[in-house]
């Protein structure tokens, strides 16, 4: 195809499903997983608790839970439910699994620092993500079964995962960032085309939370104290 042909395509041409079908994905996965959502809730509570416990092991365990959340939401939601109606979603699903593996590797090979974090700011942002973002799909669909829980829904998981930037060190952090950015851009474009305006909040929040992750990360000077 020529360049002019490509220019004749719009974003809409690449979204081959309707909003009803997309929103039903959340209902379907929640119905199929019930009552295992409780594990996702426990993980969402457990991660900030573990991050602020004394000792390096607790923090590594928190990062390990985050790694599992990436992998489960990627393989479960994106590969299993979203992929059949949208091929790029399956690719993102495998990228989410790889992101989980990356975090696990960071946990095992010294990519998680033990510096002090600002408890109040981190927990406030975490609560906004874990307790606030899940309701956006519900607001869009009008169905309470469509709750987009952390560890199950990829958007909420990625937004929470952005905050984990605060505890990853050096090169691990730079390997961790591209998926956060690409997923946010991809999902924002998709929600724009689907005209699901409530859902646009999640990718925008994810990008802002990446910045917050850097902001919350201990400065070298403070780490040395």
């Amino acid at each position: 195809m020529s360049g002019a042909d490509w220019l004749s395509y719009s974003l809409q041409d690449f979204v081959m499903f309707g909003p009803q079908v997309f929103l039903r994905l959340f209902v379907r996965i929640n119905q199929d997983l019930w009552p295992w959502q409780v594990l996702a809730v426990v993980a969402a509570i457990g991660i900030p608790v573990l991050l602020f416990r004394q000792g390096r092991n607790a923090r590594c365990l928190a990062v390990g839970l985050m790694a599992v959340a990436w992998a489960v939401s990627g393989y479960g939601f994106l590969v299993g439910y979203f992929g059949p109606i949208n091929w790029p979603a399956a690719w993102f699903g495998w990228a989410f699994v790889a992101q989980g593996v990356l975090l696990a590797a960071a946990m095992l090979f010294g990519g998680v620092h033990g510096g002090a974090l600002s408890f109040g700011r981190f927990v406030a942002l975490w609560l906004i993500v874990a307790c606030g973002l899940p309701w956006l799909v519900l607001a869009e669909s009008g169905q309470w079964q469509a709750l987009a829980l952390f560890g199950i829904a990829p958007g909420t998981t990625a937004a929470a995962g952005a905050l984990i930037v605060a505890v990853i060190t050096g090169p691990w952090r730079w390997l961790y960032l591209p998926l956060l950015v690409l997923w946010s851009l991809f999902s924002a474009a998709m929600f724009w085309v689907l005209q699901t305006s409530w859902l646009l909040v999640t990718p925008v929040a994810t990008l802002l939370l990446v910045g917050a992750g850097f902001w919350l990360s201990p400065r070298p000077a403070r780490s040395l104290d």
Partner: protein
Amino acid sequence: MAGWFSRRQFLINAGLAGLALKSPSLFANTSGTPSLSPIMRQIPGANESIPAIGMGTWITFNVGGDEQLVAQRTRVLKTFFDLGGTVVDGSPMYGTAADVIGEALDSLGAHDRIFAATKIWTGDESETRQEAARSGRRWGLDQFDLLQVHNLLGWQGHLETLKQMKANGDVRYIGITTSHGRRHREFAQIMEREPLDFVQLTYNVLDREVENRLLPLARERRIGVIVNRPFQGGSLFRRFQSEPLPDWVGEVGVSNWAEFFLKFIISHPAVTCAIPATSKVEHMKENMGALYGALPDADQRQRMADYVRSL
């Protein structure tokens, strides 16, 4: 296909007769033409006619494994068949749409009521037969009525194989497609030199460029024309649905915007069939209303286009 047409026609007529008893207004005769006869169009160069309104499946039938939505789309397809439709168009590009059509056909036991059209959509020009076979398995069909090269992707190799498949009786008709007005010059060149049965292109009351070259060429070359994006991807409704229909459209058997847009298209003498897509039974009924009653003549078509432009 022996006995295929008569059985299909019987089923269509039986369905229409039942529907007419329940909803006489749907088939209100406004023109003096026989109200229960669907508008059929002969496939150029073939001794076969197809209904002038078909069904597309882009976006609307890509519902994945959602059983609730599969059941709902099955009702849409049933309504389509009950109201006289036969032509269903898909593509391997449309995600799970092919699987959903196959499941719906199984549920309805309607494999013999369909004029099945799909596309070859792969850049590998040696994969034509394999892709057609894969699509056939997904639709639950032994063979398609029409195979088309999707958006001219790898058209040289695919078209050669499709010609062989037609000669061997593996497919009845072959064609090429485009949409959104893309690559019309190359499209016309292929129409001029290849033995095509059908072309598929975009045409609607606003996108009328094909009237200049491709539609006259199709008539000249005796090629059937399937029209995609008859509602411009739904944007015609978003733009005009809040506007009143002109008073005089009752003369041409139009009672809603769907009929207005579709009758404008199928009244062009080169057009064989338009393939609107919908996910709603009510919208399917509106679309299929365009399959009955009078059609606008050339002057009335011009008035329709002028009216839309004036809004």
